[in-house]
C-alpha cells in the first residue's frame, strides 16, 4: 500500500448506528452546503473521528464525498441560473494551488511544533477567520434585513476594485461583473489554503466572492460549489493515491448529502439575498465558539496552559456538540424559511387562479 507512513491504516467496522449517523449528518451537511455553498463538510471529519476513524482516513473520505456533492449541487443551481462556471473554474484552479500551499504550511508547522502545535494552529485559524469574517457577514445581513431585504448594492471594496483596469480583465456574464484576474487570484488562493487548513474553503471563498469580487450572495454561494468541486477532486486524487479513502464512509455520507444538497439548492430560490449571509454568519460564529472550546486541549499539550483534565474533557465534548448545534441551527433556519416562502407562493398562486 502506498501509505504515507509505515503504519497500517485501520478501517473501522460499520454497524447500523454508524450508518445512520453518517447518513443523517451527511444530509444536514449537504443541506447547508447546497444553500451557502460550503460548510457542511467540517462537521464530518470530527464526526467520523468520534466513531474511531483515523484522522487521515476521515479527511480523505470526507473530501471524496465533497466533490460529487458539490457537482450535484452546482448542476442543480446551474439550472436555476445561479452558477458562473467561468468564475468557478478559474477560482477552482487557483484554489487548488492554494490547497497545495496550505498543505506545505501544515507540514512545516507539524515538523516544527508537532501534532499538538499543528492542531492549535488549525484551531486558531478557525477561530480567527470565523469570528472576523462571520461578524462582518452578519452585520451585512442584518443591515440588508433592516433595509427590507430587497435590492442589492455592490459592496464598496468590490466596486472600487472592479474599476481598476489591470490586465487581464475578465468579464463574467452570469455573475454580471468585470474584474481583473489579479483580484480573483488572492481570494482563490486564500480559499484553497483555508480548505487545506480547516477543510472549509468556502468560509473565505464565499465572502471573498461577495465583498472583494462583487458577486451577489446567490451567485457567490452557487459558484463556490464549482470551486469546491475542483478542489475536492484534486485533493481526493492525492488522498486516494495514498490509499486513504474509505469508500464505504464516503458513499454513506453521500447517500444523505445528495438529498440535502438538492433541498438546499431549491431553498435558495425561495429566500431573499440576505438570508444566505445570515445563515452563513450564524454557523460561522457558533462554530467559532466550538473551536475556541477545543483549544485548551492543545494548549495543555503544548504546556502553554494547565487546565484540569476534567475541564479539558468537558470543553472538548462541548466543542463537538456545539459544532453539531451550529449545523442543525443553520439547517433549521434554511428549512423553516424555505417552507414559509413556499407556502406563501402557493397561496398566492391559488388566489390568482381563483381571481
Amino acid at each position: 500500500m502506498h501509505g504515507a507512513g509505515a503504519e497500517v491504516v485501520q478501517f473501522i467496522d460499520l454497524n447500523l448506528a454508524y450508518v445512520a449517523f453518517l447518513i443523517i449528518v451527511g444530509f444536514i451537511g449537504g443541506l447547508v452546503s447546497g444553500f451557502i455553498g460550503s460548510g457542511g463538510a467540517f462537521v464530518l471529519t470530527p464526526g467520523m473521528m468520534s466513531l474511531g476513524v483515523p484522522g487521515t482516513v476521515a479527511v480523505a473520505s470526507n473530501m471524496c464525498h465533497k466533490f460529487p456533492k458539490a457537482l450535484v449541487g452546482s448542476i442543480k443551481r446551474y439550472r436555476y441560473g445561479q452558477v458562473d462556471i467561468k468564475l468557478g473554474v478559474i477560482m477552482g484552479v487557483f484554489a487548488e494551488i492554494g490547497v497545495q500551499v496550505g498543505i506545505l504550511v501544515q507540514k512545516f508547522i507539524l515538523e516544527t511544533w508537532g501534532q499538538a502545535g499543528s492542531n492549535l494552529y488549525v484551531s486558531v485559524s478557525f477561530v480567527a477567520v470565523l469570528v472576523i469574517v462571520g461578524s462582518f457577514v452578519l452585520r451585512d445581513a442584518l443591515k440588508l434585513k433592516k433595509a427590507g431585504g430587497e435590492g442589492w448594492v455592490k459592496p464598496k471594496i468590490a466596486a472600487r476594485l472592479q474599476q481598476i483596469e489591470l490586465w487581464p480583465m475578465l468579464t463574467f456574464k452570469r455573475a454580471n461583473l468585470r474584474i481583473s484576474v489579479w483580484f480573483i487570484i488572492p481570494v482563490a488562493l486564500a480559499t484553497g489554503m483555508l480548505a487545506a487548513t480547516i477543510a472549509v474553503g468556502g468560509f473565505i471563498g464565499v465572502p471573498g466572492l461577495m465583498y472583494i469580487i462583487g458577486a451577489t450572495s446567490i451567485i457567490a454561494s452557487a459558484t463556490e460549489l464549482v470551486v469546491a468541486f475542483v478542489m475536492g477532486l484534486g485533493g481526493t486524487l492525492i488522498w486516494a493515491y495514498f490509499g486513504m479513502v474509505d469508500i464505504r464512509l464516503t458513499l454513506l455520507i453521500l447517500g444523505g448529502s445528495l438529498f440535502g444538497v438538492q433541498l438546499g439548492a431549491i431553498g435558495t430560490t425561495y429566500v431573499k439575498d440576505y438570508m444566505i449571509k445570515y445563515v452563513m454568519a450564524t454557523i460561522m460564529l457558533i462554530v467559532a465558539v466550538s473551536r475556541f472550546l477545543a483549544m485548551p486541549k492543545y494548549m495543555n499539550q503544548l504546556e502553554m496552559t494547565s487546565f484540569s483534565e476534567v475541564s479539558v474533557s468537558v470543553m472538548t465534548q462541548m466543542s463537538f456538540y456545539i459544532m453539531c448545534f451550529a449545523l442543525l441551527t443553520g439547517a433549521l433556519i434554511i428549512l423553516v424559511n424555505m417552507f414559509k416562502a413556499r407556502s406563501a407562493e402557493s397561496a398566492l398562486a391559488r388566489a390568482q387562479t381563483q381571481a
Partner: protein
Amino acid sequence: MIGYSKGLVMEETMHSDGIQSADAQRMNIGDMSQQSRIAKQSTILLVTRKNNLAEPVIDYAVSVADRMNCKILASYVNTLPLFEDSSIHHRFFASAIEKNAAEFKKKAAARGVDFEYVQESGKISKVINRLCHIVKRVEFVLIDQGIKIEEAALGSPVPVFNIVCSGSRTGKMIEQRQTKTILNGEKQMASTSKKGYLTKTLIFGTLTAGLYAAVFLNSEIIMHYFTKGGIYALLPVATVFVFSYAHGSFTSNFWSALGIEGSKATITKKVEKSKTVEKRPDARPRVQANA
C-alpha cells in the same frame, strides 16, 4: 386609446380607398423595410413554427384584430434552417406557407383586417425580438401551438399569449375556452410531470439501491482494491462519479415528485435578468481599425 382612434381613421380610409388598400394587402413581405413605412396602425404578431396555421387559429386572430383594429403580421418561422436546407424541402415549405397565407389574407380581408406575412428562420426568441424592433407598434404576440411561451417571452418586449386549439372551428369559442384550456393544460401538465418524476424516481432509486448493495455486499474486496493506492486511486473517484449520476438523479426526481421544486417566480426573474447581462459586452466601445 390612441391606437383605437387611429384605427377608426384607417378604417374610413380603407373603405374610401378600397382598391388601394387591397393593393397594400396584396404585398408579400420579403423586405422588412417596407413594413416600417406602412401605416402606424398597431400590429398583432402571430408566430408559428409550422408551415400552416389551423383554421380556428386564423379565425381567432382575425376576429381579435378586427375588434382591436389592428393589423396582423403572421410569421412562419423555420426553426431548423440547417436541417431543412435542401431545396426541395424549402420549396415545399414555402409553397405551403404561401397557400396558407393566401387563405389567411382572404379571411382577413373579409373582415377588413390588414394582413401581411413573413417567412423567417432561426430561434423563436430572436425572430420575435427582431420583428418587434422592426415593426414598431406590436401590441402583443400570439404564439401557435408548439412554441414554448418562455422562449417567446425571452425575445418579446410586449405580452405574449398562447393560442390553444380545443378542436372547435369558430373563433369565438376558442376565445372563451382559451383560459380554461390553458388552466386545464397546466393541471394536466402538473399531473403528468409528477407521474414522470415518480417513474424516474423509481428507476433511479432501484439503480442506486442496486449500486449500494453491490458495494456493501462486496465491501471486503472493494476495500482491498480501493485502498491500494497508486493507479487504483481512480477506482474510488470513478465510483463516486457513477453514484453522483445515479443517486443525484434519484434525489432530484425524488424532491420533484414530492412537488418540492425551485420557486417559479425567482426562476422566471432570472431568465429576464440574463437578458440584460447578455447585452453588456455590446455596450463597450470598439476600435475601428480602418486604415
